[in-house]
């Protein structure tokens, strides 16, 4: 297992696997979008607006899935101190924030025609908003600490604090919401969703998961390369050969 966690091996693996994963993502997205618009029926109550669900729900699923990926990587960082875990963790944060953002905005765009307002302080929306804020905090932490290893461990600690805290936040927001009894809010049908809608949703969820995998693999590769660049820069500066590097740079500029 450790062989696969070696950064060099990982780069080779990504080079081999990425085209397939990306291809599968495109295929699934194409099928999913086709099903969304041509196979799935319009809802008898909501009409065609229900089609927003096929991106809103997968995005919501990914916002949680991405956090779980980050938490698993955080364990790898803290327990095994593995550089690959650092890279995976750092790469996941902006992608997770992007999908959470998509979830919020599509929810808002779905809510306007259905509920009549852009935003309601509904328990689910509010929890996702807090999750988005936590993502932003993590990204800010990553960007503030310069030394990569130290930044990774700090972010890992914060991620794991979030793992403990997010269920508590979810619970308290639910409690707060029932206390304040919002205006009648449309509720999704839960498990009674019809198969003709369930299938497109499943395909889209799978497509989004593959999309996340593609983006995450690419971003993790970037983080590994960034560390190499960082190390080489330090090496060049440390061994007094920065003049050579500088000359090279000047050469390039000329």
């Amino acid at each position: 297992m450790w062989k696969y966690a070696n950064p060099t091996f990982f780069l080779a693996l990504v080079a081999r696997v990425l085209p397939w994963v990306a291809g599968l993502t495109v295929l699934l997205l194409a099928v999913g979008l086709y099903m969304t618009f041509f196979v799935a029926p319009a809802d008898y109550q909501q009409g065609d607006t229900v089609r927003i669900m096929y991106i809103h729900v997968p995005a919501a699923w990914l916002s949680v899935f991405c956090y779980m990926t980050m938490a698993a990587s955080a364990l790898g960082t803290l327990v095994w101190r593995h550089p690959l875990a650092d890279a995976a963790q750092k790469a996941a944060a902006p992608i997770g924030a992007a999908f959470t953002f998509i979830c919020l905005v599509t929810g808002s765009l779905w809510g306007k025609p259905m509920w009549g307002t852009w935003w309601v302080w509904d328990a689910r929306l509010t929890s996702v908003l807090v999750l988005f804020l936590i993502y932003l905090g993590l990204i800010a932490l990553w960007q503030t600490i310069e030394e990569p290893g130290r930044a990774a461990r700090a972010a890992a600690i914060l991620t794991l604090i979030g793992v403990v805290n997010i269920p508590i936040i979810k619970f308290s927001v639910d409690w707060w919401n029932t206390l304040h009894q919002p205006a009648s809010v449309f509720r999704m049908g839960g498990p009674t969703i019809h198969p003709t809608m369930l299938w497109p949703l499943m395909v889209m969820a799978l497509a989004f998961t593959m999309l996340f995998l593609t983006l995450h693999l690419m971003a993790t590769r970037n983080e590994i390369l960034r560390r190499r660049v960082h190390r080489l820069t330090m090496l060049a500066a440390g061994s007094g050969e920065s003049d050579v590097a500088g000359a090279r740079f000047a050469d390039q500029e000329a």
Partner: protein
Amino acid sequence: MEHAGFILASFGLTFLVVAGVLASIVIDHRALKRELARLSPVDTRVSPDQPRS
């Protein structure tokens, strides 16, 4: 299709965000590759037979 604007807006915005993330990753990748190519000769120049500059 009723509310077509909202549906179009959500799909379009999702596409834009994903495309933006993808583009930023690709641009970042290219920049890092360039940087590595610039730095690597300095690193491997320990072998004496390699010509300078």
